[in-house]
């Protein structure tokens, strides 16, 4: 009987499964380990890129119910649980900047890692973090299931502030 050691053994087994996959190269396909980590970018620089007409794609890493309640205009909804296996949304290929986010970028960062692992280029997370950071700058939020769109001119004005 395992009795006292059940949990300890389970943790060891879990770690061993991970380690074994790492040893066999499975990790390269299954996890973002040993891959470059996504970088960070100030939200002001994202807005500058938008104003210059660069193709910026926001990726909302939250659940669809959260997305409907409010998201960055134009954002694609790709929940973290789907980021590792779902077909990549076509706009991600060839984008000048791909910006995954969630509320505080915990899930956003994990989606960013998954996208980097899957070969998406120019992936960055925002500073200040996530939708909270975006809102703290007075930037607009779209509601409902449709992505909506950003008006770069309006954003530039908003960024300069009152």
């Amino acid at each position: 009987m395992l009795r006292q050691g059940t949990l300890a053994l389970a943790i060891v087994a879990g770690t061993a499964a991970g380690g074994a996959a790492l040893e066999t190269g499975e990790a390269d396909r299954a996890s973002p380990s040993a891959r470059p980590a996504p970088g960070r970018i100030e939200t002001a620089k994202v807005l500058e890129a938008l104003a210059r007409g660069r193709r910026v794609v926001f990726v909302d890493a939250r659940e669809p119910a959260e997305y409907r309640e409010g998201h960055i205009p134009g954002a694609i909804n790709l929940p973290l649980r789907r980021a590792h296996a779902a077909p990549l949304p076509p706009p991600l290929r060839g984008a000048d900047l791909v910006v995954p986010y969630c509320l505080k970028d915990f899930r956003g960062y994990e989606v960013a890692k998954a996208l980097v692992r899957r070969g998406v280029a120019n992936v960055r997370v925002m500073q200040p973090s996530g939708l909270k950071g975006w809102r703290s700058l007075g930037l607009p939020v779209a509601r409902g299931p449709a992505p909506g769109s950003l008006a770069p001119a309006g954003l530039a004005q908003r960024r300069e502030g009152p």
Partner: protein
Amino acid sequence: MTGRTRLAAAAVDLGVVAALALPLWALWRQTGDPLAYLAADMLPGQGTYVASKGAGLVLIVLLWLQTVSAGLRGTPPGRALAAALGPHDRNGLLVAALALGHPLLFVAAVSLRSGELVLTPLLPRLTDYYHAMLTLGLTAAVAILVAAGAGLRRRRHPTRLAVVLHRLAPAAFAAAWLHGWAIGSETRTPPFRELYVLLALSAAVVWAWRLARSIRG
């Protein structure tokens, strides 16, 4: 113990180990090398967030094992499960520690990310989907702590109140399960997703059977 019963016991042991290892494996699949979270360029609080998720995932499986083994008490499968799990009280304390650790690690992660102590995740809030689901998880954590405390009290002072409060455990499991399904990522990632659904179905069957048996007297 015959060879056949020994084999059955070993199968239950292996099932318990697999049930506890699968969520950690699912978390590893989602997040990758745990050592990467110690890197200097990692976002503040990200590793703490992942640790919080790990605590939550182990918690839900351990809570399921506890509630199901209690529901099956006195039956051959219940005895096999109890033998594999070890002392119910000790596991209850571990469940309580995880129920405390999961939200506290999350608060620590949010605080590290924000650069200041942020306690708002510990406050009930029903303004939006995410915070409503956080509040549900918080309710589950409180119910688990109450049920665990009542379980220990019941052992020394078997009052009616302690017995009733300890029976909050299956309701706490239901709330924790829903919280994990609504805003968890690993809970909806195969193969843990299938186990996660199985946890809910089996707990429902065991407790419906238990309830029907107690109504019949």
